[in-house]
């Protein structure tokens, strides 16, 4: 698979995972770009030991985890609500709420649920995170419960 094809097929997927992690449009775009630069550099060495998707999501997830070093910017989840809404007026409020709820979760849970919502198989999520499939299944169930409760409160 050549870089251009990977870029077209995976840009939105990677961007959404980064958005789930930081809930900040510009920041997420930066992380997605850094991820694709890393993919472009590593692609000639990619030996197809893992599926290309798993490999790409691993790089994206690790790039998100690295953001801890970038402390000069505040995650959107910590911003006052009116600022966040002012920046993105054309986004569906429910979509905004979902991404805000995900960005408020512990860091590794954000990645697990983002990958799950991106339709990545739980066996692959387990490989990406370095955990067992059972562990991932339990975590996904618990996170979904948490999000459902938040949505119930949001709707009432």
């Amino acid at each position, binding site marked *: 698979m050549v870089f251009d094809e990977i870029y077209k097929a995976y840009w939105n997927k990677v961007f959404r995972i980064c958005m789930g992690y930081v809930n900040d449009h510009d920041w997420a775009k930066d992380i997605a*770009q850094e991820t694709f630069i890393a993919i472009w550099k590593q692609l000639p060495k990619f030996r197809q030991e893992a599926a290309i998707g798993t490999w790409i999501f691993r790089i994206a997830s690790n790039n998100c985890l690295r953001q*801890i070093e970038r402390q000069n910017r505040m995650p959107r989840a910590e911003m006052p609500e009116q600022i966040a809404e002012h920046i993105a007026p054309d986004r569906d409020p429910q979509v905004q709420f979902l991404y805000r709820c995900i960005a408020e979760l512990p860091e590794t849970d954000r990645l697990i649920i983002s990958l799950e919502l991106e339709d990545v198989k739980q066996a692959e999520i387990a490989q990406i995170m*370095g955990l067992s499939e059972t562990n991932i299944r339990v975590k996904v169930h618990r996170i979904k419960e948490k999000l459902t409760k938040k949505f119930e409160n949001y709707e009432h």
Partner: protein
Amino acid sequence: MSTEVDLKALWNKEEAKDIPDTKELLKKAGSLRKAARIRLIIQSVVLVAVVAILLGVGLNIDHKQPTTTIGLVLMLAAIVSYLIATNQLLPMLFKSNIEGSSQEYLNQLIRIKRKNEFLDKVMINIYFSLLMVGFSLYMVQFSMKMSAAWAVFLYVITLACLTVTWVYSRRWEIKKTIKPLNDTIKKLEAMNEQLHEQ
């Protein structure tokens, strides 16, 4: 309609409206690589210049005593090791593999940050110890030509200045580098801990 379907449907509604062109992306990659190369060249030039200046000064002294040479070598070692450690010119110590699993990657980052913290803490002490001992030895030859009072004065003033700088630099290093590094390590450990929670 299940909640899962709802969440997935909402999740998929998010899209980056302006996908950067691949040419723009590769241009950015190229400029990042160029900037890293320029930084490495500047650091290496500074390192070579420092070594050249100190060697030039040392080699131009007539009737050298062994203490002068040893002092010079120690000062040179202090500066070179400090520059290498602080500019991370030993990439193999700080290399991380972004293609591993998140758990492996977090462990790598923690190891790298700990190495960084250790080097920062230890290097400043090594640097000033070598510099003070080196300077004391280097000055033996010259102080022998002075009166005892002047020689003592020169040693006291210089070593006092170096000690003050050492104490001040340590405080600065702790505030500017070691504390943020400690905070990052704590956050990385907390993230690693999250993976093991059920």
